[in-house]
């Protein structure tokens, strides 16, 4: 890692092009986590700078973009930790009821007629649908900040609930409660925003 590389600190023109190409997708990813365009731009900027500076340490074992993506994930976590340290996170209301979730179910615990999940079709078809991703972004924004944060750490960053508890400072049980709410809210938002629009 430390040795030779005459051109250390200089990413080749082709790598610069690849960074430029992947940049918009990195920004979208960072925005899902940080929920703030300026902070997302900053995190990506820092990740790209780090990738250029450490170009010589790219070992080529994984793809180049995979390596850059790894750096970005680290930067996002770093930004989240800073946000937390600066007291920018609202406290989690772990024990309160979630009225959005309560509205989905009747008192006896069955789905309300209007909230009953419908079929979305094949996952591959869903994922290839541009509109799905637009609605997904909008539904993520619609989640309360602290619910979205736990969901994105778990499902977009791939952290375990144990790791998330450590980052956020909550009990694992609360983490599961929050994820349950996040998933119910997201699927409901996705279905009303996307599926119902698809079928006129």
């Amino acid at each position, binding site marked *: 890692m430390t040795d030779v590389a005459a051109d250390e600190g200089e990413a080749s023109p082709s790598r610069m092009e690849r960074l430029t190409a992947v940049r918009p997708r990195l920004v979208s990813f960072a925005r899902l986590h940080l929920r703030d365009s300026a902070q997302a731009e900053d995190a990506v900027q820092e990740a790209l700078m780090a990738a250029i500076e450490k170009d010589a340490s790219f070992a080529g074992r994984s793809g180049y973009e995979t390596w850059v*993506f790894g750096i970005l994930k680290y930067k996002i976590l770093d930004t989240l930790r800073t946000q937390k340290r600066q007291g920018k996170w609202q406290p989690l209301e772990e024990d309160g009821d979630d009225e959005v979730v309560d509205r989905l179910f009747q008192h006896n615990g069955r789905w309300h007629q209007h909230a009953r999940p419908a079929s979305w079709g094949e996952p591959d078809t869903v994922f290839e649908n541009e509109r799905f991703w637009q609605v997904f972004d909008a539904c993520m924004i619609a989640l309360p900040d602290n619910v979205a944060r736990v969901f994105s750490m778990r499902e977009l960053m791939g952290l375990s609930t144990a790791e998330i508890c450590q980052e956020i400072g909550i009990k694992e049980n609360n983490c*599961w409660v929050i994820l349950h709410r996040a998933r*119910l809210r997201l699927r409901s938002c996705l279905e009303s925003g996307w599926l119902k629009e698809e079928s006129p």
Partner: protein
Amino acid sequence: MMMCKGATRLMSLKQDRSLSLQERMSLTFHLMMCDPCRQCDRQFTLLHEVGKRLEADITSRQHDD
């Protein structure tokens, strides 16, 4: 007997940890009888795949040098 709300709790939980035998059995039993919950279960699994899709989209090379 477990109702839909409780079933969604287990569907969510199974994305984060393995269910106990008891949990797995009551979920399976509920899903056998409840179509909306079967849909919900598929959708939670789909949401679980979203991150991998985003990652694949970012890391797959679409521009050659």
